[in-house]
């Protein structure tokens, strides 16, 4: 015990004497850290997201890296458990000395990472997927947290508008009892009555249960004529099967997480011909197509799925901001993140060639406007983006895009709902 005390005292002294600002040195390679739930209940959707991040790193390095250095991406698994994610993030920030950070998906893991790691250590964190509204709003992030997907509000309002357009009445909502599910439900409840629908039941469910008979029965008791299901694919398969077998309608609205083949095959495509869902749209255009093509060429399957496009943009936003920043310290990168979409800038897109073009512009001191895999990426004062929404449906077991609700249409909808 005495030895241990002496040892700690010596270490404390060493720390007190050591120079404190070691992070600012621009050593090659430039490290970007990532934490994603590669295993656990989010595992199935995370694989493509991680691959998308890898693709972005390849493009960044092929296009010239960051400040002349190649980028090294270090990815860790959070297993969907906050303590594991926090530990991994701390390791990346302290030992690997990553200069920026991306992650994660579950808001229950992202929250403690912001409050105990990235905000106190002043490391920029860009998430592809955490939608909990308070993260950017209540000041806990001190401006170091950004996300490349529109918050739940965009998706909720788009869902409500599509449900109203299809004339769905007497809707029952079954939602996963997480911050995401609660946020979505709150905004749908706000929007749907103003657009002409009505809600007859709201039933929360807890994820990873073997059966949801009780929840489904409770929702069916109100004799709903349509269902809005907000959750994650593994549980959603169980819920929809039980819903249909107990006589529920096939008019089912779904959220973005269900836009995966696993879900459609799990339920059986022939039961889902009247179903539709929502996702954040990739604006149609060359920058989106370029990303899709690059992804398909590399991985031999399509880039459809939640978080795939937003993760690519998160990585690109980090790399561009690092190049714009005068040095690689947290505060400089944080300020530079908003300059990746500057007024009057030249448009730059996805892929190594476009990235190279962006670097040349930045070097010449000219402003840029980044148009990514999800369209124009412009962070507002809070670190959020707004975006268009996409309506998808299932035809003969295949997921197809129905139509896109553009940014202008979204803003009009927001006006109608917020008054």
């Amino acid at each position, binding site marked *: 015990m005495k030895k241990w005390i002496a040892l700690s005292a010596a270490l404390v002294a060493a*720390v007190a004497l050591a120079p404190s600002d*070691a992070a600012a040195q621009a050593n090659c390679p430039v490290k970007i850290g990532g934490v994603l739930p590669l295993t656990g209940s989010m595992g199935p959707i995370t694989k493509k997201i991680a691959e998308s991040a890898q693709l972005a790193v390849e493009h960044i390095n092929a296009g010239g890296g960051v400040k002349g250095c190649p980028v090294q991406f*270090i990815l860790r698994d959070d297993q969907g458990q906050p303590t594991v994610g926090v*530990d991994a993030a701390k390791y990346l920030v302290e030992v690997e000395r990553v200069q920026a950070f991306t992650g994660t998906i579950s808001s229950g893991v992202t*929250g403690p990472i912001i409050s105990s790691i990235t905000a106190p250590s002043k490391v920029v964190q860009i998430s592809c997927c955490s939608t909990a509204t308070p993260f950017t709003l209540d000041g806990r992030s001190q401006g170091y947290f950004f996300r490349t997907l529109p918050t739940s509000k965009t998706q909720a309002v788009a869902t409500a508008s599509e449900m109203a357009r299809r004339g769905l009445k007497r809707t029952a909502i079954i939602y996963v*009892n997480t911050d995401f599910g609660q946020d979505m439900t709150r905004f749908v409840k706000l929007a749907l009555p103003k657009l002409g629908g009505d809600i007859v039941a709201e039933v929360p469910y807890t994820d990873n249960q073997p059966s949801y008979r009780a929840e489904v029965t409770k929702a069916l008791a109100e004799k709903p004529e349509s269902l809005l299901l907000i959750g994650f694919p593994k549980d959603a398969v169980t819920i929809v099967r039980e819903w249909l077998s107990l006589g529920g309608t096939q008019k089912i609205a779904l959220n973005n997480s269900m836009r995966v083949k696993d879900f459609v095959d799990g339920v059986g495509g022939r039961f889902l011909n009247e179903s539709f869902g929502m996702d954040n749209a990739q604006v149609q255009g060359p920058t989106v197509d370029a990303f899709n093509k690059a992804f398909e060429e590399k991985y031999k399957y399509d880039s459809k799925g939640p978080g795939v496009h937003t993760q690519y943009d998160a990585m690109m936003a980090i790399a561009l901001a690092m190049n714009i920043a005068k040095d690689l310290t947290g505060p400089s990168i944080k300020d530079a993140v908003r300059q990746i979409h500057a007024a009057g800038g030249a448009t730059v897109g996805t892929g190594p060639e476009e990235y190279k073009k962006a670097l040349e512009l930045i070097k010449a001191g000219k402003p840029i406007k980044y148009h990514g895999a999800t369209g124009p990426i412009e962070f507002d004062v809070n670190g959020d983006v707004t975006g268009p929404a996409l309506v998808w449906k299932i035809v003969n077991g295949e997921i197809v895009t129905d139509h896109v609700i553009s940014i202008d249409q979204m803003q009009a909808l927001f006006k109608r709902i917020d008054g």
Partner: protein
Amino acid sequence: MIGIFSYLVFFACIVLILGVMTLGLNLQWGYTGLFNAGVVGFYAIGAYAHAILVTAPRPDLIGNFGLPWIVGIAGAMAASALAAWIIGLATIRLRGDYLAIATFGIATTIQLVTLNWDSLTGGAQGLPAIPRPLSTWFGSPLGFNLFYLGLLIAIVGLVYWALERILRSPWGRVLKAIREDETAAIALGKSAQSFRLQAFVLGSTLMGLAGALYVSFIGFVSPFDFLPILTFQIWAMLIVGGSGNNKGALLGALTIWGIWAASGVLIAKLVPPAYAAQGGAVQVILIGLLLVASLLFRPRGLIGEVPVVSRHADD
């Protein structure tokens, strides 16, 4: 260098917090034979009690009293003790696996209450901005973490010393007697139920203390901190470390959390970046293998129980 040190300080803090929980479980299982499968429930009560007592008031929430840190710690211990006493009165007569199922159910219930009682716990959004003790005194995260580590070492030292003392007292010998042969203990005139309840409450109070220490370290609490996997991890720590030995409990916390963290580092280092997406699965397999191996080679734990009759018998 400073980065590695800074990480190790953080890691040590988490280990000590988990160690407090493992010590609590050791009192219940290692010494008294109470199969508590609801560790995370009492941890959650302590965590939320602390968060609700010390966080600054917010208009949309009841609670959040903005009280000093030490009041939060005392409140967390009192709340988890009270909860354990009520739950104990109802369930303590259950033996072995029946108690396990009951406590598992209660822990799940507690987690669901924290998820659904929005006006008190903030629901799934959690409670942010939980004040850290004296954090304004320190300019850097490392400074605070070092201070907190010192605080934790003091607390764990105190808990360890107190446990060692009471477990070597006549009170501790009664617990062991109940674990070994309850009927014989009753025949000797001891009220087994009363002693079991005392051990259950005391152990759960330590779990509540750990919860409070965790949230005041991280500064954020949400229901996702209290998934059943944590109960499993604490059990693994106790069994791998050595049930019935407080040193073993602490060593187990260090070993298991070390395996969890180190396997992640190892995978990130060894797996080529292009296959990083598959690395997570390998890590989980690795953790499982190490657990199985440690149980095969050290079935009584790394440091097993030491047969001690009383502190006078040592001489």
